[in-house]
Structures are given as structure tokens and as C-alpha cells.
């Protein structure tokens, strides 16, 4: 009885008792969720366009952030470092398309997945060989001052992260829906062969989509890097983005955002109100369990396309 009380009653009593603290937790969760979404977005873009489950997204985030920091430490101004890093991500996309994806066209998904794990290892090793493995401080000039609204302590930086995340999603949505390249991307996502047959150049599309994923990775890298320093663990946030993906659906951009928000809030709330019951540190697996239970009821995720199977 006491156990049930501790699980089902007390946490909610706590929440109602101090609504301000609860709101703070929720908002903190939402803001972390946006950061997860930023990483998940890169996954979704590539999966949509090429059907590749790109495990290397986390490594791309790390690599982009490392390159940016490395350039800035060598005295480049922020704007120049940003442009050069973006250029590096495009080159990376071209190289990956040419050396990895093209030879593996028509292979089973798991083989491509495997290749992206190889890319992950390479990028992690390469980035750290070139730029070293110390923790770098990244400061691109985003204001970072705490302030108070209605008794809640918020951080200006988090608000900026939210704004940038929202702007990026809006930009991507417009890009996907109203530009010629965006339409081509959607066509490729629907059906490779049909897209080829109406004259859409598949290879160019892949380069574009990996570059865009690289830019998204760069933004995510800037955000995470300014928050917690640019270090190896940055590539591990890919693992945080995976439950977001299955929750939102591999193929849905809004899904990545909503999934990220749900996971972010769920994780924080569970850690603070239920975590102490089982000894804490449940953040590591809670997101996965949440996604797992969710999938049992909706196998294609929140916004994923309905899976239709035919023999």
C-alpha cells in the first residue's frame, strides 16, 4: 500500500503543492526536448530521403562542433568559422555519398546502417585526431543570462535555443514544401525509382540531403557545445535522439519535434518525481521505455506513415 501510495499519489501531490517548481521542471524538459529534436531532425531528413538509418548523426554533430571550435581557437572570427564549417559539412556529404553510399546502393538496410556506424567511428577518430580530445569551450555570442518570470528561473540561452529550433523547423518545412529541391526531396523519399524515372538526379539529392543534415548537425553542435562544452560525449546524444525518433516516427519532421518535447518533459518529470524511488539516474533508459511502451500501441510512431504490408 505504501509503495502504491509512493508511486501513484505522492508525486502528484508534490506537483500540485508547488506548481511553480513543477512548471520549471516542465519548461526545463521542453527546452532539453528541443535540443533532442535538433539531433533527431538530422536523422529524419536522411531517413526520409534515402532510407538510410544514419547512426553517424551524433558523430556529425560532434565533428561539426569540433571543427567550428578548432577554427575559432585558431583565431577565425565567428562568421568565417561558421561558413568554413558549413563548407566542410558539404564536403563531408559529397565524400560520404561518393565513397560510402554509392557503392552500397541496393544493399539491405542493415548493411547501410552498419556503414554509418563505420562513419561514426571514423568521424569521432578523425575529429579528435585533428582537433584534440580536450573539452573546448564554445562561445558564439548567444546571450546566457538567467532571468525570472513569475517566480520561475529561466535561462536566456535556452530561450534562444527554442527560438532557433523553431526557426529551423519552419525553415525546413518551407524548404520541403515550396522549393523545387524540396519537392524533389519528397519525391525521392516516396519512391526512388519513380523519382529517377521523372528525371530527378538521385545522387545530387543525396548530397543535398546529407549536407542539410550536416547543417542541422552544426546547429545542434553549436547549441549543445555552448551548453556543455565541445567534447567526445557530444556524439552520445545520438543515443538520446533515438527514442525521440521512434516516438515521433522516422519519417516525420513534426514527429521529431513533438517526440523530442514529449521525451524531454517525460524524462525530467520522471527523474525528479519518480527517480528517487528507484535510486535515480533513470534518465538513461526512461526515454527508451516510454518509446517502447508507446510503440506497442502505435507501431509507426506518432506521425509516421501507416505501415501497409502486402505479400
Amino acid at each position, binding site marked *: 500500500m505504501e509503495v502504491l501510495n509512493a508511486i501513484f499519489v505522492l508525486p502528484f501531490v508534490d506537483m500540485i503543492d508547488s506548481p511553480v517548481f513543477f512548471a520549471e521542471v516542465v519548461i526545463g524538459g521542453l527546452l532539453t526536448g528541443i535540443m533532442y529534436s535538433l539531433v533527431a531532425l538530422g536523422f529524419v531528413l536522411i531517413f526520409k530521403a534515402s532510407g538510410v538509418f544514419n547512426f553517424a548523426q551524433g558523430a556529425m554533430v560532434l565533428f561539426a562542433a569540433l571543427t567550428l571550435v578548432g577554427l575559432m581557437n585558431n583565431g577565425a572570427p565567428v562568421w568565417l568559422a561558421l561558413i568554413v564549417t558549413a563548407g566542410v559539412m558539404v564536403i563531408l556529404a559529397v565524400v560520404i555519398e561518393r565513397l560510402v553510399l554509392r*557503392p552500397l546502393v541496393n544493399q539491405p538496410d542493415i548493411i547501410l546502417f552498419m556503414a554509418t556506424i563505420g562513419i561514426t567511428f571514423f568521424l*569521432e577518430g*578523425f575529429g579528435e585526431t585533428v582537433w584534440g*580530445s580536450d573539452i573546448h569551450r564554445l562561445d558564439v555570442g548567444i546571450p546566457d543570462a538567467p532571468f525570472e518570470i513569475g517566480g520561475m528561473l529561466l535561462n536566456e540561452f535556452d530561450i534562444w535555443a527554442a527560438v532557433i529550433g523553431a526557426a529551423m523547423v519552419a525553415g525546413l518545412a518551407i524548404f520541403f514544401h515550396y522549393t523545387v529541391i524540396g519537392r524533389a526531396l519528397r519525391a525521392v523519399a516516396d519512391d526512388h525509382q519513380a523519382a529517377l524515372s521523372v528525371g530527378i538526379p538521385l545522387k545530387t539529392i543525396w548530397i543535398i540531403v546529407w549536407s542539410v543534415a550536416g547543417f542541422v548537425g552544426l546547429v545542434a553542435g553549436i547549441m549543445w557545445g555552448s551548453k556543455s562544452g565541445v567534447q567526445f560525449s557530444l556524439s552520445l546524444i545520438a543515443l538520446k535522439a533515438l*527514442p525521440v525518433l*521512434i516516438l515521433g516516427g522516422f519519417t516525420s519532421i513534426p514527429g521529431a519535434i513533438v517526440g523530442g518535447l514529449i521525451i524531454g518533459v517525460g524524462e525530467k518529470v520522471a527523474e525528479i518525481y519518480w527517480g528517487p524511488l528507484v535510486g535515480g539516474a533513470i534518465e538513461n*533508459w526512461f526515454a527508451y521505455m516510454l518509446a517502447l511502451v508507446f*510503440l506497442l500501441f502505435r507501431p509507426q510512431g506518432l506521425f509516421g506513415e501507416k505501415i501497409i504490408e502486402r*505479400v
Partner: protein
Amino acid sequence: MLYRESGQYKTRYQDDQAIFPLKQDRWLMAIALVIGFVVIPLTSSEYMLQAVLIPFLIFALAAIGLNLLAGYCGQISLGTGGFMAVGGYAAYKFTTSFPDMNIIVVFLLSGVVAAFVGVLFGIPSLRIKGFYLAVATLAAQFFLQWLFNKAPWFYNYNPSGTITAPPRELFGVLVSGPHASAEARYMITLVIVVVLALVAKNLVRGHIGRSWMAIRDMDIAAEIIGIRPMQTKLSAFAISSFYCGVAGALMVFTWLGSVETEAFAITVSFQVLFMVIIGGLGSILGSFIGAAFITAVPIVLTNAPQFFGLQMPIDMQKHFEVMIFGVLIIFFVIVEPHGFARLWQIAKEKLRLWPFPY
């Protein structure tokens, strides 16, 4: 000339259905076993056994386990490390609670425990497939690792949080614990791995393996011809986890001796997945080759700079290793997506025609 079936007439169905229908294959196998059981224990150094051969065998067993699931039944799992942890911790609990229990029985029982856990985490596979399932199995990985870290009961309230294999004897010979000789630990590992590999080979040739493959190739079609998806998928999860569990138990008892949950981290899951894919999906032999490759590469890479007389700072070398490992994976996946097992098959085809290929 050396390797062909001409002249080997089979007069009984039994011969026809043998695992190695060719005389040459049987010889090769016999030679491999003699090398494994006699030559290696007599000639290898302690370092070789401890750092190369025992981990190779243990990872080969785990790779067979994952191969049964991913290669034969088509369900990708990234929870291998978690299931191995279940095996390791179960074996520890069994043998500390019942010190008189035969160590082999302990290993098998811990496999059974892992099988139950595997079935539990395999249930989502009935609803989801492909990468959704792969990500879902990560839940097993993270949850189990957390559980063994946080619940002191699993490590007998040891303040350091590690589990240490107690000394256990088999036929009067010490096979685990700090004083067991490397040869004894190698032998018990080898026996278990060989027996379980044989069982696996027969499983996949039989009814259950065929139903796994039917599910893998197209689950709806398999369902229509009367294969029950639930039993088939869950049995694949159970047996695969059994293998991983035994591998985990061996890892604690005959290889590392003393482990924390970190030993079963997600990197282990990925490593085993590499072995399965580089060795060849859907091949028992491939699991061995893949395990040999993945255990050998880091050792070679670590020693290569000295070999060439290069001096590198140690962290630089570490990064270099990771980088080269990544390149190697990409390279092998591109050159032969079906793994080493396929190369071996091609070699055999070529050998049959050699030296007159026309």
C-alpha cells in the same frame, strides 16, 4: 582437385543430411578441433590465451547468439550487451547462493534466465520491426545496465559494486577465480562454445531454423503458410538470449574474473553486431570469423605503430585506432556486404573447379 565431391557417393539419407557431407570438410573440421583442443593449449602463452583466444571464443558465442536472431530470424537487436549482463549476473548469483552447484549447470541456468529476459524484451517484436525494433531493444540495454548498477542485491551488497568470480572447480581442476590457470579457463570455454555452436548449427538446419528463416524472408507469407509468428519470433529471442547469457557468464568467470556493468556497455552490443555483419549474416562459421576479425583488429592496431617504429602520443594513437577501425568496417561492408562467410563460400566454389575452371 583437392576439394570436390566427385567420387563420394552417398548411399544413405543419413550421409546426405550430415552437417559436413564432404570428406574434405570433415577433415578440415577435425584439424581445426585438434588445433583448438591440443595444439593451442600446449603451445600458447598465457597472454595469448587470456587476451586473445578466450575473448575470441566468448565473443564468437555471443555472435552466434545474435546471428540466430538477426541473421536467421531477421530481428535486429542492439541489446546484446544487456542480455550478456543478465547471464553474467545470474551466474554470479547462482554460484554464490549455491556454492556446490556444478559450474556447467550454473552457466546453463544463467543462460535460461537470460532467455526469459530476452523473451520479455522480444515481445515488442510482434508489433514492430526493422529499425524501430532495433532502437526498442536499446531499452533492454540501458535498462538492464542501470538495474545491475542500482540494485545492490545483484552484486551481493558489495561496496565496490563489482562482481568477482569465486574459485570453482570442475573435475578437480580450478576453472574460475584468480588462481585458475589460463589453460583450464580456455578449455572449459572452448568445450562450451564448441558444443553450443554444434547445437546452433543443428537448430538452424532443422524445423525451428527454417521457420525463423521464413519469418525473416517475409513474415506475412510465412504466417500464411502456417508458421506462427509469435512462437517463432519469441523462440528466436529466447535462444539468442540464451547464447548471449552463457557468453556473458563465461565473460565474468573465465575471462575477466571481476566486472562492473561497464563491461556490458552498449559498445559490446555494437561490437557483437559488427562481428555478425562482417562475418556474415545467417552463418555460424561467419560468427567465428567475424569474432576473430573484430578481436584481432584492435590488437593489431595497438601494436602496429611500434612494429613500424612509429612513436605517437597515446591518446593520438587511440583516436587513430578508432578512425582506422571505422574505415575498415566501411571497407569490408562495401567489398563484401555478405561478410567473410560469403568469401569462404566463393573460395569453395572456385576450389571445386580448380585447376580446370572451364
